[in-house]
């Protein structure tokens, strides 16, 4: 666990010092919500009804940037080699990087949540369900993003390839999280906790798969 926290701490310290999350990714996330508002002709009732889906589309697009950023910091100066030489197991490196990415996404989701309430006039009826489903979705997105990020990392076409690989993988998260949020925000008559279960399963599968697959991927990169 100590190694996991060390790797996560390293990534978070780099973000705190570089301020890329604050000055580039966060404004992008809010700009996405604003553009989606324009796309629906700024119709307040439509925006409120569709706010769960619009929120998660914004989160997933933002997650693409965050995942690319997460692997870029390892790729610059071949920092990944140093990580491997530190004798930390690939599974722990994966867990640490996924934890750091999840923490960054949680901050961005909180920001987007406030923006959604302000811009889309959304109201949260079941706060516990919203937080639980967002947490499960965030872990799943972070695990898949970290795994697929390192998969595309050393390739010259990373910026274009990663969305092609990652967006289909995010599709179940978008469906599940939108349904769960629909229940939490009172815009859809569904059982949100059942969709929370699907999100949890997705997170579990990708956390295990990522921990197992990260080693061969790092070896292939070096």
């Amino acid at each position, binding site marked *: 666990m100590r190694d996991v926290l060390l790797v996560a701490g390293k990534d978070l310290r780099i973000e705190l010092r570089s301020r890329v999350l604050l000055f580039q990714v966060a404004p992008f996330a809010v700009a996405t919500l604003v553009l989606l508002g324009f796309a629906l002709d700024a119709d307040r009732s439509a925006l409120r009804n569709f706010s769960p889906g619009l929120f998660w589309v914004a989160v997933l697009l933002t997650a693409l940037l965050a995942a690319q950023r997460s692997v870029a910091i390892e790729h610059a100066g071949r920092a990944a080699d140093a990580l491997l030489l530190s004798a930390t197991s690939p599974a722990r490196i994966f867990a640490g990087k996924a934890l750091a990415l999840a923490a960054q996404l949680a901050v961005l989701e909180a920001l987007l949540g406030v923006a959604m309430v302000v811009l889309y006039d959304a109201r949260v009826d079941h706060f516990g369900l919203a937080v639980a489903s967002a947490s499960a979705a965030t872990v799943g997105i972070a695990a898949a993003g970290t795994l697929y990020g390192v998969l595309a990392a050393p390739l*010259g076409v990373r910026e274009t390839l990663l969305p092609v690989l990652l967006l289909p993988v995010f599709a179940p998260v978008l469906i599940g999280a939108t349904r769960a949020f629909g229940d939490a925000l009172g815009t859809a008559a569904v059982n949100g906790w059942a969709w929370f279960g699907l999100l949890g399963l997705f997170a579990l599968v990708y956390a295990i798969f990522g921990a197992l697959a990260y080693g061969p991927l790092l070896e*292939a990169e070096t």
Partner: protein
Amino acid sequence: MSILLGRSPDRSEPRAAPAHTGSRTTRILGAGVLAGVVGLGLFAFIFSPPDSRPGPEAGTRIGQFDVVRLMYVHVPAAIWTYIALGTCAAASAAYLWRRSAWWDRLAHACAEIGVVLCAVMLLTGMIWGRPVWGTWWEWGDVRLVTTLVLFLTYAGYLALRSVPAAPEARASRAAILGLGGAVLIPIVNRSVEWWENRTLHQQSTLEELRIEDLTLFTLVLGIFVMGLLVLWLVVHRFRVAWLEAEAESAGLQAALAERRAEAAEPVTAGPVAAAEPVTAGAADDGAGSAGP
């Protein structure tokens, strides 16, 4: 196994690459596929009847009529998509275990054929859906949506494979992706049963056995012929991949030999070279220090 390259998959490299993608076995297989396609065409378009039943009112007929003939391509394409992509996932797992180029190329060949079949399944499904469901695309149909996600996932796999990289690194990355995408295959296949109230798709045609006689025979024939076609395509795609790798390796060896020959030649041009001709050994030393 021998139909692909006549070798055991356990060795990391074959004894010799084939000179071309055809062989006596594949030519016989190809002839069988051609005959099968002709036979399937006859049964699908001429011998098998259209789907037509008496309607509730006297003198009226209901059913899918001639549109039902699309089923003879759509259902076989669906079945062989699952098998091709499932084989890709299994070969990917075998690659990660054995690290053999044989498994990597099998996974690549199966993925490529699987993606084409998946596209055929989606297209024929949409063409069938327009007259029967009244729409090209139905977002509420779970199988339709999950199939599209499956298609996009393996299209991404092919995109990853198309990026130039060291063969071993590319194979490892592709194997992880091929294995990860396989999670979707049972979801797509079973979606009609798992989400009965979220689909317009009917339950499995073959499992329920609600069709009979010539229609059922034609459907089974379609599955068999499509299977032969898939096998023929996979064998040839596998051999093309093998030849590509051989050509790449031969090109590299030729370039290395050319550089060595250049370095071995004495330099005669220029005033310094004219005064002190460089020997082959000195040139070799220089090349050696500059190269990796």
